[in-house]
């Protein structure tokens, strides 16, 4: 295992110390390992928090700041955080207007956030939760854990954070988050595996001529393993099932998000974006906004995911609103 760390046990703590040192203008790090917006709580503002396993940076900690998250709860690598963290974060950002939990749909995240929400509510804090489950690689079913939360989470955090910043109340912010979830779909693929530091070896074996289609952001196996193909065909294989969801139609405006998994050179993401643009344009869908880069990653995994969000004027306005975080920044 080749990593720039000291020991697997200290990695998350040390990275948090690094973030605290690098971004004191935006955030602070508190016990028990939570990243809190510097000026939280802001009286009267709905608090927006999220969290999940570490190893997906900049998500979530890198999205703490003005116009996005009020706090993030980083767990061990690829392991959802513990309720103590979400409870502490909820209290730290509660300005009296309630707190929204943005939860990615993983059994562990769901249960730990649930326990924390119960505890916070017991302490008199109003908490709402929205579950992001946008990964079309997974069959949606009432009888399973359902779909994973992936790239749509980044877009939800940005948009919802902007609404909360603008003073929207908890009900409005919660409904907006659900609206993002209802209009966003993603799919990813991997060329290589990631290595969980504590595990010390790659999560999956994959030969030099194969790729994993529909991979999860924790290196979970995807829909299928198959022979490596040219980038354009790979993009087709990801965009097609997203479009088959029936959400996106000719005449629609979308936000297209081409995301690197952590070990993917930016030049390759632009090669892919070119093809995404070509496919959507061909279908009469307008890419009104885009995001190209590595924002929700899986440690050093090489690969990409594509996320499409159907936009309306409200989503567009909140997407364009100022944001100032370590990972996303514009308008201020």
């Amino acid at each position: 295992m080749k990593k720039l760390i000291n020991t697997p046990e200290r990695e998350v703590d040390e990275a948090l110390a690094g973030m605290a040192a690098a971004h004191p203008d935006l955030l602070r790090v508190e016990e028990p390992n939570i990243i809190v917006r510097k000026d939280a709580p802001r009286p009267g503002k709905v608090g927006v928090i999220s969290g999940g396993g570490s190893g997906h940076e900049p998500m979530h900690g890198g999205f703490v700041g003005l116009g996005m998250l009020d706090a993030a709860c980083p767990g061990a690598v690829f392991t959802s955080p513990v309720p103590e963290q979400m409870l502490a974060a909820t209290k730290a950002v509660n300005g009296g207007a309630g707190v929204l939990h943005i939860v990615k749909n993983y059994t562990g995240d769901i249960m730990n956030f649930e326990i924390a929400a119960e505890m916070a509510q017991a302490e008199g804090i109003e908490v709402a939760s929205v579950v992001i489950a946008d990964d079309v690689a997974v069959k949606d079913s009432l009888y399973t854990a359902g779909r994973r939360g992936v790239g749509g989470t980044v877009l939800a955090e940005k948009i919802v954070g902007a609404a909360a910043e603008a003073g929207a109340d908890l009900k409005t912010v919660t409904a907006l988050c659900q609206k993002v979830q209802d209009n966003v779909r993603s799919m990813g693929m991997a060329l290589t595996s990631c290595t969980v530091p504590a595990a010390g070896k790659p999560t999956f074996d994959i030969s030099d001529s194969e790729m994993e289609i529909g991979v999860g952001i924790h290196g979970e196996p995807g829909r299928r393993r198959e022979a490596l193909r040219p980038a354009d065909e790979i993009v087709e294989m990801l965009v097609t099932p997203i479009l088959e969801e029936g959400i996106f139609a000719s005449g629609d405006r979308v936000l297209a998000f081409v995301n690197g998994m952590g070990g993917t050179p930016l030049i390759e993401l632009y090669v892919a974006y070119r093809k995404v643009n070509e496919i959507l344009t061909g279908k009469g869908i307008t890419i009104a906004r885009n995001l190209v880069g590595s924002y929700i990653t899986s440690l050093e995994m090489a690969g990409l995911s594509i996320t499409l969000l159907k936009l309306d004027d409200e989503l567009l306005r909140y997407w364009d609103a100022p944001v100032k975080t370590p990972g996303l920044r514009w308008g201020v």
Partner: protein
Amino acid sequence: MISTGDFSRFLETFAARIHAAKEELTQLDSAIGDADHGINMDRGMTAISELLPGLQDGDAGTLFKQTGMKLISTVGGASGPLYGTFFLRLGTSFGTATEIGPTELAAGFRAGLEGVIARGKAGLDDKTMVDAMVPAVEALEAGIGDLPAALDAAAVAAAAGRDRVTPLVARKGRASYLGERSADHQDPGATSTTILFESLRDALRAG
């Protein structure tokens, strides 16, 4: 009668065996999950080991409630809330008793199991720890007349439950994302649950 010290030895044994099985559990989880189950469980049970010296002389309820709370606050993932809830309910069921008989033992484990189901909403054949836990608790309940035999039956039933669902397609937890590809893989959580019942048997037999 089972003393708090006996239960403490059970947790110690469970911690030691989880530590020994850390790689195996992680390996199982890397096939159909995210390669952290052994790491998660070991992190939690190591914390429990450190807790035990201060708890083994108190009541059984406190021992397991503290264990449950500690697991919830150290493990994370799916297994943290599930095992945490399991031990919390077990502790609540035992209350302030310091000596536990077979009937209370079975009732406590039933309460723990119900907590796991309430929290995780998994049923039989969803291919989770529940598939090992249900038959184990049923064996305990069925055997309260002969505790050593019941403990052995529970451990055997857990292993059988674990193996029974190996061919199945997972319907809960991370493995469910795999659909058909999850079939023919042993579930990591059912494996750690089997270790739990084996530890219980061996620790109480030794006592």
